């Protein structure tokens, strides 16, 4: 993907929209435990919210889509790490405990 010809934005509108979505997700996520049945589903939804919020900050605030591929990939990895870890420890918690026991 060539990103050289894309100019960084000068409009505040995408930032306002991103901020609004981040605020909504922040206010919604603590209610997840009450709204959803089952611990596993809650953990997966919270993992999804972490990924969406991190991706929004990277995409619209840091402008990661126009950044050097190394920076893009570092951000992608860091943002994906925790949601993946939450899902894995939710479904394979016992296996993880065995691996993580000295």
């Amino acid at each position, binding site marked *: 993907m*060539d*990103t*050289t010809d894309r100019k*960084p*934005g*000068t*409009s*505040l509108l995408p*930032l*306002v929209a*991103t*901020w609004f979505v*981040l*605020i909504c997700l*922040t*206010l919604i*996520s*603590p209610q*997840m*435990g009450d709204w959803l049945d089952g611990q596993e589903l*809650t*953990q997966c939804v*919270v993992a999804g*919210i*972490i990924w969406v*919020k*991190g991706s929004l*900050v*990277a995409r*619209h*605030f*840091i*402008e990661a889509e*126009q*950044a*050097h*591929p*190394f*920076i*893009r990939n*570092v*951000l992608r990895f*860091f*943002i994906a*790490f*925790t949601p993946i*870890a*939450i899902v894995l*420890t939710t479904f394979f*918690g016992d296996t*993880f*405990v065995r691996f*993580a*026991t000295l």
Partner: protein
Amino acid sequence: MISNTANLPVSPVPVATGRVPGNKGIWVGICCEFVEFLVLFIVYFVARAHFPDAFHSGAARLSQTAGIVITLLMVTSSFFIASSVISLRAGRRRQSIMWLIAGLVAALGYPLAKYLEIQWNLAHGIDGQSGIFFTVYYYLTFTHMVHAFWGILGILWVLTRHAFGIYTADEHSGLEALASYWHATDIIWLVIFPFFYVLG
């Protein structure tokens, strides 16, 4: 064997392209920050997997309001600082400074909220000795607080330079570097928040 490669046609090798928001130095720092927190996140997952009951009951004892307020402050200050960059890029220098001041004020709300949260914790008998959950909670959140403190100092430095007219619409890499660091610190908090205030 000596070969002459001077006249060989150059194959079109795809070159990695894209801009560096801010400067390379700040991204070295951000990568180090990410590595540090990845290690702490692994500590969290190991502790949580070994003591699920402590983490379930511990989250219920913390003030969820404090976690939400800190998250709103971090997200909002991040938005203000991103707006400062965009405004300067569009040539609106005065507006950019105002956004940056707003970002500083929101950022300063974080240590204040943290202080009040700790007072609340202590009043409810929660300290670093209260169990594995709270040990991990204090260690991770205090480490993040230290990183936010560097960010606040950075905002003050950049704001001073901005007020002296050092940044222009064409050259404002210092402001962008600060913004990148603050957004990275924001992303880290967006992970820490559900760790202790949402996931039980």
